[in-house]
Every structure is written in C-alpha cells, then in structure tokens.
C-alpha cells in the first residue's frame, strides 16, 4: 500500500540522526483477530502511525446477495461476523421483514432474543479471553473458552451448528426451542453468573492487567460519535446508548436491563480498560435478558408464512441491530424482483478499524495490541 503523506523526519536534540522504522504487522499475526495487516511507522518503541491494510477477508458478501435471493442469503450473513452470527441473522431477517412488511410471531421473537443474547455471551467471552491472551495471560483465556464451549453446546442444541448458525429465517426462526431447553439454559446461567465475579477477581482488577490498559488510547465521546464508534466501544466513553434500549426493536422494550458504561475507574474515561469492563458488565445483562425471555416466552408458532420467492416492493429499507460489536446497519434496496438489488452492511468493527490510525499515534507498539483487542475488531466483519 502507498504511504505517501505519512513520511516524517526525526531529529534528535544531540544532533545524531535517527531513522524511523517501517514495520509490518500481520496479515498472519496471532493478535490481529483474523487476517488483517498494519503498516507501523515507529520511532523506537513509539508509534507514529499504524495504518490498517484490510481486504484479506473480503468475500464480496454484498455482491453475493445480489445473486442468491432474500432467503438464500441467510447462511452468508453468518459469515459476516462468525464470532456472533446470531445478530447478523437477525439483522438480515429484520431488514427483509421491514422491506416486505412481514410480521414475526411473538414466540419467534423470543426465540431470536434468547439466541442473540446467548450469542452475545459467547462473543464477549471470546473477546475478553483473547484480550487477556494478547496481553500475555494464558490461563484466563482457557477459563473464558471453557464457558464459551457451554454456550456453543446450547446453541448447537438449538440449531445444530456451533458457529455459523443459519438459525433465523425471514419471518421468524427455523426451529422452536428443543424440549427441556429452558431448564438447560437456566442451569447454565446459574452456573455461569457467579463466574463473572471470578473473572473480575482473576483478570479485571489484576494489577498487571490494569497497568497495561489504563490510560491507553482514550477516546472522547465526541470523537467516538464522529468516527461512528458503536456498541461497547461507544459505551466505554461513558455515553449511555444502546440500540436495544434507545431505538428498540423486537421485544426489547418489554425487557428490563441496564446499559453499562465506562466510568474511567482506573484511568482516563474511554481508555482500553473501560471498553473491556463494559463487556464484562454486559455478560451479566445478557444473562438477565435470557432469564426474562425464558419466563415470558408465550406458546405459538415461531415462523410466519412467507412467500418462497420473496419480492419486496420497490424501495429501500434500513435497520440497526445491536450486535455484539455494536450497532450494525443493514441496508437493502429492492427493485421488486426476487433478488436484492443492493445490500450494504455497516458493521461495528468497520468503524472501529477506521479510528485505529488516529488512536495509534504516539502510543507504544505493544499498546497497539491492547488497542485492537479492546476495540474487539473481528476482521471478517471489517471486510465482509
């Protein structure tokens, strides 16, 4: 990639010339959360810039949508963000339902939210676990992954897949909850919820860990909004905004949950630690939501009758879904045929990657790892 405009000269006080280094990080790097590359310009350990070079995982998902039709695109949405595919399913289902004016049966909505919130727990566990691992703590990662496996087992019981679920359909979900599912999930939640406190004891307030994250790459609220940071990254700046609560969709208005925000408790407001701790707190909220859904879920069908060849009227529709990596924008243009005319997916990781260049200026190279991990970037979601 061209680096025109990013050259700079380093002049030391004692007259000795120093040289800036151009380092390559990635595309295969254990801490880059997928295949992405940074061109780092550094003066010793201090970075001048870290320019993200993306596109390695560009599978032209948006273009594929134009060829496979509305129903056929559902499995592809799993691959947009394979760490938390449920919300991608939901985003696509919701935008098609909005474009075509389809009503989802009430039980179907509950199934969706249960699946999505379990997916959020799994995603945040991976995010938190890999973040600790990137910074050098191996053990907590295994603790997080152990619990994530249990969530994956639950999701496997629900839809037969552990990663790319293809669970939702336009008009509802593919299958009802299996028999005894509520008991299974409740047993997991009973066992899991006390562990959140354990994570805090083990990792969150560990002195070494806090020192690595506090005051690193702080983002102000205004900056975050201007760069369109979303989800936990936005809430980490102390701004209480959650699409589930503030632009409610599905059955979220009926549910009671808090929106945790960063408070700058160990350093500057909006630093890496704040983004991290918001995810830990959200684990608890997701547990709360799943419990409520299991209590409130009504009987009835889970899937509305939808035409096999869905042809939404000419026009466009846009929905926003609170995915694990924040507000995900789904835009679909229909020309009245059975194929979407254009699909656009704006993901949370995409906005998060675009701010890396700005945040990386003047921080240590080692802190770049903490920064990327705290932004919870998932590379396939950036490239689509």
């Amino acid at each position, binding site marked *: *990639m*061209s680096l025109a*405009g990013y050259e700079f000269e380093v002049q030391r006080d004692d007259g000795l010339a120093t040289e800036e280094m151009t380092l390559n990080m990635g595309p295969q790097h254990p801490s880059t959360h997928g295949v992405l590359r940074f061109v780092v310009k550094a003066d010793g350990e201090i970075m001048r810039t870290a320019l993200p070079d*993306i*596109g390695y995982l*560009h599978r*032209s998902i*948006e*273009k594929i949508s134009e060829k496979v039709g509305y129903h056929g695109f559902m499995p592809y949405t799993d691959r947009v963000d394979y760490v938390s595919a449920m919300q991608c399913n939901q985003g696509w289902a919701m935008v098609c339902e*909005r*474009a075509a004016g389809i009503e989802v049966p009430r039980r179907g909505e509950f199934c969706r939210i249960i699946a999505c919130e379990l997916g959020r727990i799994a995603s945040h566990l991976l995010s938190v676990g890999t973040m600790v691992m990137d910074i050098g703590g191996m053990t907590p990662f295994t603790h997080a992954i152990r619990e994530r496996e249990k969530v994956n087992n639950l999701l496997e019981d629900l839809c037969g897949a552990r990663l790319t679920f293809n669970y939702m359909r336009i008009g509802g979900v593919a299958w009802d909850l299996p028999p005894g599912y509520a008991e299974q999930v409740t047993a997991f939640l009973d066992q899991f919820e006390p562990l959140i406190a354990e994570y805090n004891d083990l990792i969150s307030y560990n002195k070494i860990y806090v020192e690595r994250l506090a005051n690193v790459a702080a983002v102000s609220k205004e*900056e975050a*909004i*201007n*760069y*369109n940071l979303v989800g936990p990254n936005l809430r980490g700046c102390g*701004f209480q*905004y959650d699409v589930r609560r*503030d*632009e409610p969709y599905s059955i979220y208005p009926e549910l009671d949950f808090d929106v945790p925000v960063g408070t700058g408790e160990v350093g500057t407001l909006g630093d890496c630690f704040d983004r991290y701790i918001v995810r830990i707190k959200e684990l608890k909220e997701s547990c709360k939501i799943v419990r409520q859904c299991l209590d409130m879920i009504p009987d009835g069908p889970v899937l509305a009758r939808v035409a096999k060849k869905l042809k939404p009227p000419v*026009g*466009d*529709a*846009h929905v*926003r879904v609170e995915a694990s990596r924040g*507000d995900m*924008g789904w*835009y679909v*243009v229909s020309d009245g045929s059975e194929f979407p*005319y*254009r699909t*656009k997916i*704006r993901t949370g990781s*995409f*906005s998060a*990657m*675009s*701010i890396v260049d*700005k945040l990386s200026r003047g921080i240590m190279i080692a802190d770049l790892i903490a920064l990327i991990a705290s932004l919870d970037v998932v590379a396939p979601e950036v*490239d689509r």
Partner: protein
Amino acid sequence: MSPTEIHQRLQDQHGDAITAFEADALDPFVLIKSDSIVEVCRFLHDDPDLAFDCLTNMSGVDFLKEDYIQVVLHLYSYTHRHAIVVKANVSREEPSMPSVEAVWKAANWLEREIYDLLGVVFTGHSDLRRLLMPEDWVGHPLRKDFVEPEEYHGISTRRESLLK
C-alpha cells in the same frame, strides 16, 4: 423532529439544493444535488435543532437502467434521537461528488469503500485509495455492468461447476 419537519427546516435554509422529498418511504429521504452535499451536511450537523452528529451508514447504489449512481447517507442524531436519509445522484460516466469527511470522520472509510466498489470519486477526500480490493484491480465490482476478469496475476477466476 419528524422527517417532515427536518425537511422543512432544510428547505428554509438550503431550498435550492433539494430536488425531492419522499415522506411516505419506509425511511423518509431528501434527494439533494450532489454539488451542495457538503453545505447541506454541514448544516444538518451544526444546526442545534437538527444536530445530526452521526453518520451511521453510507452506501452507493448503481442504477444501471436509470443511468446514475446514488449515494445514500443514513444520518442519526444522538442528541435528539431522530433520523433522516440523504440521497444524491451522480452520473455513471464521471461519478464525482464532494467528500463529507470534514463533517463526519466516519465518512473517510465509507467513502473509500464506495470509491473502491463503485468508482465514485470524492473530491477533497484526504486519502482516497482502494479499501477492500487490491490496488491494481481494474474496475469496480459493485457496478451492475462489471464483468469479472478472466484471471488475476495468472490466477484463473473460473471454476468448474460443482453441480455436474
């Protein structure tokens, strides 16, 4: 504010820039002249009653039959919790419009993506390079008349059908 009120306020200030307003669409939108997009967006962003502080989504759509490319901006205000869609049409032959990067930083990568996939040139953009496709790629894949090249650096793009 409702979309109609937003449009009214925009009409008062930048009436000559607006070519259409569709209140009955699923997401009500204003269609504006592409040349005046920066002034309109600057006003939408700065006006305290509108305060569209967030560009949530920006897409390009190639309308082949109608012979234009449409750039669609989904705006949202965290301050007032209201939304509007702004659309601007550019020609397919020489697609070019001013960049709104100075208004919302989020536009930087979103515009790069549209440039990459649809070939719209955003004048005044600080770093207009391809984002997703390789730098030496020819053509813009999301154009409706895009034809996939036979090969790329000696690698064939043709695959035998698995359904034989």
